[in-house]
């Protein structure tokens, strides 16, 4: 019965007797579009308005990845069977969601398919979308806690994820909202980092508290906190040097900085944001785990979503660590920073 529904779509169009034989064949055919993903751009079902235009722009590639392939896949299956789940599993893995989380999601999907007595492979897509959204919504909280004056935002992460750039964007965004912002050049290690932050500051007309390259980052942050208090700024955003989470000494140094923040900012609103690069694979989970231990991160910033990377790690990290994604970076311009909304994120992936 169901087969007839899909006859037009399925090129292989197997008859009932041949289905099992053809399955293997069909499977290998389906692999090809995946290999060439990102090269062709079939019609897009996206028509989000201006508000989300930029997000959409950034996510189009991502969307093409998962959605088209799920569509292709779903269309080419005529009934829900193990192969379908297996293929869905593979698609999620290819999106960097990770083996662990993928297995969980697929297991839940199985349950849900059973509960809903779903018999149509097309329904599976909807259920999968639901599950992914739920995973993100469970911990969702896109707002930054900036109630007090001053409030403080610490930005941490491994090398090269885009911390300084993200700070430039956040500062710009807050300033546009009418807030009085101050920046602290806490990356005293990397060559040119202080200069880089100063340039971002200039672009938005924001002061930067800095010491010399090579000086103690804790001292810079301390000074910046004092300055923020005496100047009565609304938000102080502190840059920190990129560090690999497995470098004990560097993590200890960060711990020291946070100790000072904790001591000097008692009673003040604090955000500790971990920046993750969307192109990063499973290591992001490890990064988040260890940074969370040392800095008690309150949220994530997912950067570089304007590439072809799927950013699936967000789902794993949210699920495993219960830390919400707060902001996403979708481009190199000052305004290319968006609040993270699970619904919109997944909608943009699947619509």
């Amino acid at each position: 019965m169901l087969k007839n529904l899909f006859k037009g779509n399925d090129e292989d169009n197997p008859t009932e007797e041949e289905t099992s034989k053809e399955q293997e064949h069909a499977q290998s055919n389906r692999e090809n579009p995946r290999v060439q993903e990102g090269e062709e751009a079939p019609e897009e079902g996206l028509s989000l308005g201006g508000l989300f235009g930029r997000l959409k722009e950034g996510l189009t590639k991502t969307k093409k990845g998962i959605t088209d392939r799920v569509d292709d896949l779903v269309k080419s299956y005529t009934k829900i069977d193990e192969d379908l789940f297996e293929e869905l599993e593979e698609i999620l893995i290819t999106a960097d969601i990770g083996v662990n989380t993928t297995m969980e999601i697929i297991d839940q999907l199985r349950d849900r398919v059973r509960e809903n007595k779903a018999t149509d492979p097309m329904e599976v897509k909807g259920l999968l979308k639901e599950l992914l959204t739920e995973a993100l919504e469970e911990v969702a909280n896109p707002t930054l806690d900036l109630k007090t004056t001053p409030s403080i935002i610490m930005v941490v992460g491994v090398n090269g994820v885009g911390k300084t750039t993200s700070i430039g964007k956040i500062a710009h965004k807050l300033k546009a909202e009418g807030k009085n912002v101050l920046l602290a050049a806490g990356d005293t290690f990397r060559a040119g980092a202080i200069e880089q932050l100063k340039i971002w500051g200039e672009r938005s007309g924001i002061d930067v508290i800095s010491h010399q390259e090579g000086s103690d980052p804790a001292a810079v942050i301390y000074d910046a906190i004092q300055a923020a208090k005496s100047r009565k700024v609304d938000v102080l955003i502190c840059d920190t040097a990129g560090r690999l989470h497995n470098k004990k000494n560097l993590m200890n140094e960060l711990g020291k900085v946070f100790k000072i923040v904790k001591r000097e900012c008692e009673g003040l609103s604090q955000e500790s944001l971990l920046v993750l690069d969307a192109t990063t694979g499973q290591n992001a989970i490890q990064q988040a785990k260890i940074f969370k231990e040392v800095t008690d991160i309150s949220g994530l910033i997912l950067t570089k979503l304007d590439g072809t990377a799927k950013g699936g790690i967000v789902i794993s990290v949210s699920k495993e660590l219960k830390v919400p994604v707060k902001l996403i970076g979708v481009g190199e311009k000052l305004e290319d920073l968006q609040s993270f909304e699970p619904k919109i994120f997944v909608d943009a992936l699947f619509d």
Partner: protein
Amino acid sequence: MIFEGLAEKLQNTFSKLKSKGKLNEKDVIAAMREVKMALLEADVNFKVVKDFIGRVKERAVGDEVLESLTPGQHVIKIVKDELTHLMGDTQSKINFSNKPPTIIMMAGLQGAGKTTTCGKLAKLLKKQGKRPLLVACDIYRPAAINQLETVGKQVEVPVFSMGDKEKPVTIAKESILHAEKHGNDVVIIDTAGRLHIDSNLMNELKEIDELVHPHEKLLVLDSMTGQDAVNVAKEFNETIEINGVILTKLDGDTRGGAALSIRGVTDKPIKFVGMGEKLDELEAFHPDRMASRILGMGDMLSLIEKAESSFDQKKAREMEEKLRTQQFTFDDFLDQLEQIRNMGPIGDMLNMLPGVPSKQMKNLNVDEKELNHIQAIIQSMTRDERTNPGIINGSRRKRIARGSGTSVQQVNKLIKQFEQTRKMMKQFSGAGMDKLKKKGGKFNMPFFG
């Protein structure tokens, strides 16, 4: 992590298998599922994994299981061999042009570590007697030029820059003339980070390529990159036909599956790996180490392999005897230390030890320098002192510290550790040793217990 030790999982998969003989298809398929998971968890691209598994399956089915190995170990051996093979040879060389200057162009995504790597490469080449020139072609990122200039100062290599108002193509072209005039025989061009789908910036890269014809075009890639590594490598390779790859941030704890992915789609060699933030931390790429790493820690087989090849069986027997009779001396200690060091970095070794939880390992920071100190201290002892540590009194300790360039505290610490080890080994040589032997052949490591 779902995957803590491939070796263990495979052992479980094969635990029902009593007879050795040939690997049959059913077993191999079961094993390959675990291998597949391991590779995916290590961020190897899905398509690359599938190809790889197919190849290994073909090779493994019907393969005679080696006498000394369990079927599970044998499968890992095949997997590791294939992985090493796929990773290519060690080709950590720069192709120098007959007619200087040799032009090297670095390219990659934002934040991959291009500028730092430029500095590292300049330092390396300078050490080889070259006179490199660094060229600042990243006119987009704020303070990128400033960063390269600072890096240049640190490695004492001149930096050519024309500010951020000139086009990168112009800067590149001018830099070659500058190098010719100033006798620089290598030009290293630092380009801006760009997305592989940004056609404007990719075209810019192509323009530079067509104008200055670099002899080496190196893609700088973050070793933590996930499934997307294939897209990045493919696009860059198609645009500028890269000569090789530099994998950065490998001093992190990523499994680095991206290395396999890029080999899978470009077939270009990985030439160097970035191993730290300091500018001398650029190392040659070792395919076998990378293979072990991608397969995950707890790779017991490579330990066995390494142990068998570098551990002198006779010496090991002697050692065992000594341990039993408690004649273990500083000389033996030194001897073992050297043998073990022949096997590779100690951190790796510890990770490969069977039955040692990787969580514990994370807190164990093994400093290779520390081992150098130990070696120096023992070598500063007289023969008598080595065989009979009891005679080492205060003034001897002072002398040993002076001789080895360490402190008395360090000498004290070592002697104390040695005594403890001796004690421990006495217990260990009873029950524990037999267990170890059963698992991994002759393998005694007194000071790691």
